[in-house]
């Protein structure tokens, strides 16, 4: 355990050092020398991965708060906090990545006073800004609790439900709007990915990834912190995941069918391979796995399926933002090492911050007496639920 820890620390230090060097290049020499971006290919992995995937991976925040606080699914309560933490860190890191990508990062506040309501980017900017505020308010009680500040906690709890509703609406808007961003380029984006339904696809897949990330995180925490969700909760999440993935899959292929693109998916080619890689990872493998009762019921099986779903939809976002635009640009884009270094450092920072928070803040309801109370409560709730049947 000790050796492993030092190994990860070394990895972390290495990523940070590389990221630091790349940061210096980026801000002293500009985007040209620090990236492989060009006039033909103006958006690279900082948008395709850091922003699109970052926001998607943080979708657990709104999915779960909605399930627990709005739909009143109490069994999921123990994982609300780690998911909010992930979402909060996710959005903060997305903002950090944006600072790298914007040509003039010090003007990131411009949309506040210079408005163009016809711009999807403007809408995304506003939603992300507001939702990060919502997340910090949802996250604040965890910190306040640590320092035992009851007054502000009470205030936040008083407005919790409107806050959660606001968060869900904002998330719905900007998760889908990241897809809407690409609606303006029907002639540029490859027909595998260009669809009038892009906003819908982005939204549904965000929910799927939100669920998968929750399963994934639970297993990660069990490895590194010895804390894990109870299996029934994971199984429940797995079940919902199957439904969401199936809905997404049906819609996706119906859309291809109606646009007459289904045949195209069988003609070998660069886009075709990446399309099927995405579909395999995000839909076929996870659904095959989860259709097995044995897999669906085991923590390990659920973990593998969750990882596949996450990888699959990361592929999807990269396909939309990079693969799908390459033929129109007439070139292949491969990120420069400095672009990867910045991304790597941001991810490493995310893991480190998560670890720190988990160590010093009451993220998991782990205290034993409390847990007993929690369980009793859950049982009582269940009894009550069945009493209502």
């Amino acid at each position, binding site marked *: 355990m000790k050796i492993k820890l030092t190994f990860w620390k070394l990895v972390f230090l290495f990523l940070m050092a590389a990221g630091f060097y790349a940061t210096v290049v980026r801000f002293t020499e500009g985007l040209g020398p620090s990236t492989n*971006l060009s006039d033909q290919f103006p958006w690279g992995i900082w948008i395709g991965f850091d922003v699109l995937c970052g926001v998607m991976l943080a979708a657990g925040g709104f999915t779960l708060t909605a399930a627990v606080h*709005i739909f009143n699914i109490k069994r999921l309560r123990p994982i609300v906090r780690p998911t909010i933490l992930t979402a909060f860190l996710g959005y903060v890191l997305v903002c950090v990545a944006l600072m790298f990508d914007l*040509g003039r990062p010090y*003007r990131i506040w411009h949309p506040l006073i210079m408005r*163009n309501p016809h711009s999807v980017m403007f*809408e995304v900017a506003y939603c992300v800004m507001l939702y990060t505020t919502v997340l910090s308010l949802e996250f604040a009680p965890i910190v306040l609790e640590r320092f035992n500040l009851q007054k502000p906690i009470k205030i936040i709890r008083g407005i919790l439900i409107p806050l959660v509703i606001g968060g869900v609406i904002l998330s719905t808007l900007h998760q889908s709007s990241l897809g809407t961003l690409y609606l*303006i380029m029907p*002639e540029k984006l490859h027909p595998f990915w260009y669809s009038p339904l892009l906003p819908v696809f982005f939204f549904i897949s965000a929910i799927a990834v939100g669920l998968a990330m929750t399963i994934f995180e639970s297993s990660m925490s069990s490895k590194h912190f010895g804390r894990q969700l109870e299996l029934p909760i994971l199984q429940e999440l797995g079940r919902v995941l199957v439904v969401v993935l199936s809905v997404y899959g049906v819609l996706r292929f119906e859309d291809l069918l109606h646009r007459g693109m289904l045949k195209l998916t069988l003609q070998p080619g660069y886009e075709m391979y990446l399309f099927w890689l995405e579909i395999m990872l995000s839909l076929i493998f996870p659904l095959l796995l989860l259709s097995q009762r044995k897999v669906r019921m085991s923590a390990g099986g659920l973990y593998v399926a969750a990882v596949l779903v996450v990888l699959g939809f990361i592929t999807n976002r990269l396909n939309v933002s990079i693969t799908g635009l390459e033929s129109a640009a007439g070139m292949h884009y491969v990120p420069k090492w400095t672009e990867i270094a910045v991304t790597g450092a941001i991810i490493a920072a995310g893991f480190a911050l998560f670890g720190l928070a988990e160590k010093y803040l009451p993220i998991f309801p782990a205290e034993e007496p409390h847990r007993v109370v929690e369980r009793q409560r859950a049982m009582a709730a269940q009894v009550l639920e069945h009493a209502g049947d």
Partner: protein
Amino acid sequence: MSKALLYDATMCIGCKQCEQACATQNKLSYDDAIAAEERQSDHKYTVVLTKSDKFMRRLCMNCQEPACASVCPVGALRKTAAGPVTYDENRCMGCRYCMVACPFGVPKYEWNKVLPKVQKCTMCPDRVAAGKPTACAEICPTGATKFGERDDLINEAQQRIRENPGQYVNHIYGLTEVGGTSVLLLSSVPFEEFGYRTDLSKDPLPILTYRVLSRIPDFVPLGGMLLGGVWWITHRREEVAAAEGQHPKGDTKDQQERKP
């Protein structure tokens, strides 16, 4: 009324004086090396392409309903009533959405600068506002690049095609492309040969995103009511139970307050 440029490739002699005048007007450097560059870039807003004895100009089309202006989150790019699509570098935050969105791949970026700008032809907005033609049209020795009212230029282009059948491709490029542009092109060789896409839709592109965006004002109150309603219904059972004294009221986060 809105102004436009009509470029007739059959009248062009490839002298590249329009390139030079454009550079001077926009305070960009211009020399033989730059003149030889056959593509638009951050230091070359317009380019005269050559293919054996045929020529073709490329420049910002200054669309009637420009995708670039519709996507710019801070309104740095704007379509003016007079025709030009202008750029305000003091607003631009460098998101480069305009570059991704432009169907003609026009906006270019100053990749090698620490504080970069977007660079594109803006159809000499100051000159146009002062009632003068654009720099390129003014200098053109043959009238291949002509400045005028868009409607008049369309009539003239139609007339030229009508009177010289066989000399032109029967198409005014820019008349309907993405809802029409303020730069109109006539040519004797197919436009694709010079990299102009002829598969562009006739509808303005901004409609595609606006169709979705315009639903938001309706969605927000509706979504709020819906979620609030679900909350009210799902928590109703507990309220009843609490009233009957069977179960502690509300299962929201307040339980943590009662922590030992």
